[in-house]
């Protein structure tokens, strides 16, 4: 099997507009969590989140007209996709091709997107109509065309980023839009890699995006008991839940031949991935970390690696007691006493749900390229259930150039990806 290389790596979240800025923030020990600016959340049970500062949708998109057709989550996704594609040098290369070669190139370039966000806010466009029609659905129907934007449905499509990034960049190959809550982004990378392995494409753009910091989502997550009062402290004795974040990330993955044809800079290599579910229910996870440990085992087998090959682990670390404890159990089951340095990013950038796995890959790749395992600044004392986890407050050096990224979601879903970072 030929190597799968990474030639574009982008990310946007509260900590910055590219992976380098985000890793700088993490290694400086800075949390981006602060009071929510999106609405007046002073009276809310939780009023903290990691929002993208100074958000300007038109500027991020580079297209003000398109802004009317997409949501905030889509803006992040289109931004990240565009950045990764440009870093990989695809536009410059395709512009120089003749029409027939460009068509062939487009057919051989795929796109997989992990999509989330907006399940509630899209309904809010109907509120003026509902206020006007009261309890009368008959009036709702007659007044509909006078009140709601005719393009409403297109704005609310979960596959908007796939659509607009493919139109903008003429991607016509294998594709998918994965809407599997938190594991969406990491699955988009796994599916992209398979499309290359199976010879269905020579290049694939993997993107994930989410913008879950909305009032209804926050309140529901609080009811489920998943949100911290103030600080996300993964694996810490005082861990009491996660804090929401937002943003997107993207990779360009391709065959070595495709990258060499352009003389593209190789940032890293995709080595393998695995996915496993526990099937206990929407909000249930097993205490023994069974699903996560099986996902890691599958990724190691897929990559042909041993646990001792792994140089650093980017853990899910969502700061809830049950997830932290079962994640520790899973890592002990796979690595035992010989655990590579573990880090996690959500303490600084929040939980990005559908995009979290891919944002963690983008950060893990950049950190791995620097040989640094960022410390977890909000960690003071390990929780008893996490006592054997190899995680520290201080930055450390990676053990090898291989990075393991973990991701877990609702419905007991677990996924793992292994990468090699090129220094």
């Amino acid at each position: 099997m030929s190597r799968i290389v990474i030639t574009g790596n982008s990310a946007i979240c509260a900590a910055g507009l590219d992976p380098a800025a985000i890793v700088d923030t993490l290694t400086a020990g800075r949390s981006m969590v602060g009071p929510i600016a999106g609405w007046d959340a002073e009276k809310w049970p939780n009023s903290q989140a990691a929002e993208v500062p100074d958000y300007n949708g038109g500027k991020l998109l580079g297209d003000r007209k398109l802004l009317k057709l997409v949501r905030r989550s889509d803006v992040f996704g289109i931004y990240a996709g565009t950045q990764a594609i440009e870093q990989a040098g695809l536009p410059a290369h395709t512009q120089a091709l003749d029409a027939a070669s460009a068509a062939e190139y487009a057919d051989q370039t795929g796109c997989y997107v992990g999509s989330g966000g907006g399940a509630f806010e899209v309904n809010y466009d109907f509120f003026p109509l509902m206020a006007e029609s009261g309890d009368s659905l008959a009036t709702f129907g007659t007044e509909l065309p006078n009140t709601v934007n005719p393009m409403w449905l297109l704005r609310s499509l979960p596959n908007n980023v796939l659509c607009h990034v493919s139109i903008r960049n003429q991607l016509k190959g294998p594709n998918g839009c994965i809407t599997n809550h938190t594991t969406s982004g990491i699955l988009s990378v796994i599916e992209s890699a398979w499309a290359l392995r199976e010879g269905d494409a020579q290049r694939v753009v993997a993107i994930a995006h989410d913008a879950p910091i909305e009032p209804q989502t926050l309140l529901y997550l609080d009811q489920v008991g998943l949100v911290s009062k103030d600080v996300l402290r993964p694996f810490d004795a005082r861990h009491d839940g996660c804090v929401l974040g937002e943003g997107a990330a993207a990779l360009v993955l391709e065959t070595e031949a495709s990258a060499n044809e352009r003389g593209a800079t190789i940032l890293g290599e995709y080595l393998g991935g695995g996915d496993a579910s526990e099937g206990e229910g929407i909000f249930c996870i097993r205490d023994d970390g069974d699903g996560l440990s099986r996902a890691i085992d599958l990724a190691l087998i897929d990559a042909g690696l041993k646990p001792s090959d792994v140089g650093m682990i980017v853990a899910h670390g969502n700061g809830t007691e049950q997830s932290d404890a079962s994640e520790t159990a899973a890592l002990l089951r796979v690595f035992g006493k010989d655990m590579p340095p573990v880090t996690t990013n959500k303490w600084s950038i929040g939980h990005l749900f559908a995009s979290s796995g891919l944002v963690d890959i983008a950060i893990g790749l950049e950190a791995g390229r620097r040989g640094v395992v960022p410390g977890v600044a909000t960690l003071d004392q390990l929780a008893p259930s996490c006592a054997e986890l190899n995680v520290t407050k201080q930055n450390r050096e990676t053990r090898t150039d291989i990075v393991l990224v973990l991701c877990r979601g609702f419905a007991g879903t677990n996924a793992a990806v292994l990468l090699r970072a090129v220094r």
Partner: protein
Amino acid sequence: MTARRRVAITGIGLVTPAGLDAASTWARVKAAKGCGGPITLFDASGFSTRIAAEVKGFDSLPPIDDRKLLKYASRAHRFALAAADQAIVDAGIRPTQQDAARWGCVVGAGMMTIAHPEIAAIQKAAAPDGDFQANGILQEPVAQDVMAFSRSLSTAGISLLLRRFGIRGYASSVHTACASGGQAVGTALRLIRRGVADRVLTGGFDSMISPVGLSGFCLLSAVSPDNDNPERASRPFDLTRNGFLLGEGAGFLVLEEWNSAVQRGATIYAELAGDGNSLSSYRITDSHPSGDGPIQAMRRAITDAGAEQSDIDYLNAHGTSTPMNDRSECAAVNVVFEGRAKEVGVSSTKSVMGHLIAAAGAVEAGICALAIRDGLMPPNANLQQLDPDCDVNIVRDAPRSARIGMALSNSLGFGGSNSCLAFRNPEETAALIAAGR
């Protein structure tokens, strides 16, 4: 290199406007009797389109018999649970403690949100004058209702299926609008080929027959406004077609690695032989009039199945009954099949049951498998005057008896994702295997 793993379809479950199981759905599809009618699920009297194809007489409790589980299920999830249960029973196999990790699950999930009464409660609490004020929801019970939240999650449907059937392997939900079901089934095929799973429960589910769901399509003028003639509202390829008929439901399949299905003596409907995917990269709602996009998906599915275009006997078209889709799709058919397009029977299941959106591709995959089993191409209902721009060999009026060696099923989505699945008659597959291929 070892031979590529082949995939058998051994179980089918359908909950559709045409019937509450596979047998009754197939009977009505063969009878070409349209399922459109006035909307009864809510007061649609003010909408420009007041018709849809609803699932009638459905009660999820008898098949599922788990009141606690059903509390977590929306209408679409209930269709999914019932259809998946039928598929598992039909296949005669289910995950055990020993092999649960080798079972996967891939679904095309409908658009996710809360139900209309819940949206209305949020509006009354937080936007009484239409302008949303976040603090308004702080005391609103619906905004604290964990059950409402769990039903709205993108993984709500797959969560219920994983738990219900004890599946512990690869699990993914996809959504590429109208292509969702096809892409889910295609991904499931690939999981077995890759060796990631030995068996996969796969399908799609959707129900957009709600005030907000219908609104989206009315605003785009995508649905037929033929309120006085609902049974004929969906008439793909007819010169007078004027939009699709909104349907709802679920379709599920059990897929198995071929040899293990043969060894356990399973009844095999068909081989799921190929998956083709492409992006139109043209406009958000249309394919190019030339068929660019769907052409690549169909060619890839045929190649992926190790076949030639000359092997294809039947095409279950996407055939939505919108002016643009049917024209573009027929252009694609004529390009892909070159000089022999007239030898390929074409029909659209949507002519009978309307457009099941995220479920459509999965339901139509089930229809293709049944067509191969029975050697019968289902008819395209409601075609009176063929659009000259849809110059293909439509199966008109009645089912056409013909041995089907291979069939294709198209699903083309808003957003430009195109899916094509290829199916092979199990006798042909057995012959290929005997010949060492």
